[in-house]
């Protein structure tokens, strides 16, 4: 399963539509198959990000703020969206891979 997290430095990006960098990881049986790769976006765009998610065949998106319109679109495309996640991307990724991350989680250091 492919998983995508819009990032901002070490954190999950505050907004899906303002993210300029994303992390894509592949996992199987609750384990990462390889090191996550980072992609720099030419410019922040929610639509562009949605296109990339479909093109990359991502099955799960972990993000912080996301507009209802884009959330619904991704859900309609049968993509799991775990939103309102606040914290560093590393623990968020670990929890998501382990199936233990929920929408609204605040991951304090």
């Amino acid at each position, binding site marked *: 399963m492919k998983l995508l997290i819009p990032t901002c430095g070490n*954190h999950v990006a*505050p*907004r899906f*539509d*303002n993210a300029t960098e994303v992390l894509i990881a592949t996992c199987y049986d609750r384990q990462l198959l390889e090191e996550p790769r980072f992609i720099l976006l030419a410019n922040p765009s929610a639509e562009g990000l949605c296109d990339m998610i479909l093109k990359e065949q991502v099955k799960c998106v972990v993000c*912080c*703020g*996301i*507009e*209802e319109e884009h*959330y619904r679109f991704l859900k309609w495309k049968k993509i799991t969206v775990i*939103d*309102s996640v*606040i914290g560093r991307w590393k623990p968020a990724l670990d929890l998501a891979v382990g199936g233990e991350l929920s929408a*609204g989680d*605040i991951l*304090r250091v």
Partner: protein
Amino acid sequence: MLDDILNAIPHGVMLLDASLLVRGINSRLQEMTGYSAGEACGIGAEFILRSSIGAGSSLAGKVLESGERVCRNGTLLNRRRISQWVQFTLSRVDSIDGETEDRPGLVLVVEKAERSEPGGGGRSSSTLVGHSPQMQDVFERMAILARTDASVLITGETGSGKDRIAEELHEASARAGRAFIKVNCGALPEALLESELFGHQRGAFTGAVKDHPGMFRLADHGTLFLTEIGDLSLSLQVKLLSVLDDSRFYPVGSSSSVTVDVRLIAATHRDLRREVAEERFREDLFFRLNVLHLRVPPLRDRAGDVRLLLDHFLRRSVRLNHSRVEGFDTEAIRRLVGYRWPGNVRELRNTVEYGVNMCRGTRIGCGDLPDYLFEPLKVRTDGASSAPRPDQPAPAPVTPATGWAELEQQRILNALQQAGGRRGRAAELLGMGRTTLWRKIKDYNLE
């Protein structure tokens, strides 16, 4: 105690420490963001606010460093995935808990706002900016006026934004998407204006080589905006009244009438009641136009809007000119906020554009602003108490002058007086070349 004060404020308020972590959030902002104080405290503010103003931390860092208050319009995306337009105002405070000294932090005030300009952080269509109670009243009235199809009369001083309001009314009305035609009644002579408004038939007069539909027909099913209607001649006022009453008129030289469905918005900087009293404007047309009246307040009466507009036009001008200007220095801000802006928003916009173009550094200072911003102050105070420009010597007392030419003459005379008649020294004082001064002395006949 501090929480009680914060909760009493009718806008969203957040306290941030120097690391930009949330240290307090009032109930209004909790409601707006969807995060309780317990959840938000200790978290980076940008993760709670999720604003569209981009790298909020760099902006907040600048405010912390400079202590200069900053206003930005943008969107706030809450926990329920709803985006709302707000105005963010960031200010530095010396103590965020009200007790411990030397513990600087930031106070962030979040107010609901109308959709604002691009560059304020996101998509936008509106061109009107203002958060003063006077403008809020205008926005509320506009929302009501947009829902009706009645004629609207917009009054206000020149440069106060009447044209923008008319466009916004049209865009927000049921006629949006149809034509919006603007005609300046003061810009054309009477005969030409009649033909322009109502159209003419080929051969109606010398030079009428083909049919002209006229603005009323072009605006059919849309909105016709007549600006400077106070300058309309009495004979055309009669014809306009007839069109407003019957929705029909005869183009110049035509014997068949034309029926149109047009919403009329009129604007003027004149006091139409006085014009009516002085028999320069027809009373019946005034009453017909004055169905719905919207008065745009002058900028000097819009408390707090000057700063907001300065930031707004600065961002726009910086973007358009690809400039690296970041803001105004403290003295320039003080001058600009204290100025009376007789030309209203138009004058302010042009002043900011001037400053952005003239500024050689990253902050616009007094030396980068047009001279006239300083001249009226000198005139009003007879030169005694007004602060001189830092880069120029204090002028000798001047007598009140009205026009630019008179002001310039007065400046030249003062400089000559100060320089003891030495033209080279006077030119230096005035910041102009000797030849320019010599030419101006000749032009003004000051020899």
